[in-house]
């Protein structure tokens, strides 16, 4: 599967067992990306999230 990096437009090949909402980093620009959907394979910048959790 091929998807485009939203930051640097590089072509990224995704392994077959990639999961939706999985986080990968772009091999070209290193941006952290989230697999928004697999059909078609679409990537978006992974949201920044603070570490501290509730219960």
């Amino acid at each position, binding site marked *: 599967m091929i998807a485009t990096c939203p930051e640097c437009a590089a072509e990224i090949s995704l392994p077959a067992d990639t*999961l939706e909402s999985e986080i990968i980093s772009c091999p070209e620009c290193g941006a952290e990306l989230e697999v928004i959907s697999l059909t078609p394979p679409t990537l978006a910048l992974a*949201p920044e*999230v603070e570490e501290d959790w509730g219960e």
Partner: protein
Amino acid sequence: MLVIKVGGSAGNNYDALCDDLAARGSAAGPVVLVHGGSDETNKLGEALGHPPRFVTSPSGYTSRYTDRRTLELFMMAAGGVVNKSLVERLQARGINAVGVSGLDGRILAGKRKATIRIVEDGRQKMLRDDWTGTIEHVNSGLLRTLLDAGYLPVVAPLACSERGEALNVDGDRAAAAIAAALGADTLLLLSNVPGLLRAFPDESSLITRIPRNDVESYLSFAEGRMKKKVLGAQEALAQGVGQVVLGDARVAECVTRALAGHGTVIG
């Protein structure tokens, strides 16, 4: 002013706690009782075929994943049966308790962690639809109104997001925030251990005193839930609470004993 948090785990003796509160009477000053509900929620979820799902953050921090269904189970367990059974026990002992949650009157204004990052089977993922939150601030007006009118507020650990969504929050952190907002003299965190143990689970390794500006160095002794209690203690002290005591909820007169210094006194 005394803020008490009692956990829901097995062994904790709600009756003994309520006996002690009744024996101490209102002369002992105003009291707010905060409780948990995670164990009851787990049991309910398992019985209804929706068992709890715990997730781990990239930095190894575990917490319950609260999807909408789990939030409703939490409302039933913590907001419902645990809250009302504690109120019932107190009413039966002549204490005029009022059961609410942090959602009611927006007592606990929280920030929702709608998206969180987790690590599962070695892969990092975003997880949405999480109804967990952290406490931003306490609207203590309703609590003061209830206390001034002579009631004993019993607070379930639900919070209210800016947009009015119900959130599952950590009971210890909720108690710490309430204690700070009310300027409590003592925050008493009761659980099913004597206090912070140097060598868990060896109960003879109880750490009896922690100076208020040295809490950091004791964090390493705390695991899992106890870590959240020590974090909560640190936050409370930083915001002006007089002292924090980690006490044993399994024994009789648990409040009186803790206030007499039995357990881990921080402050």
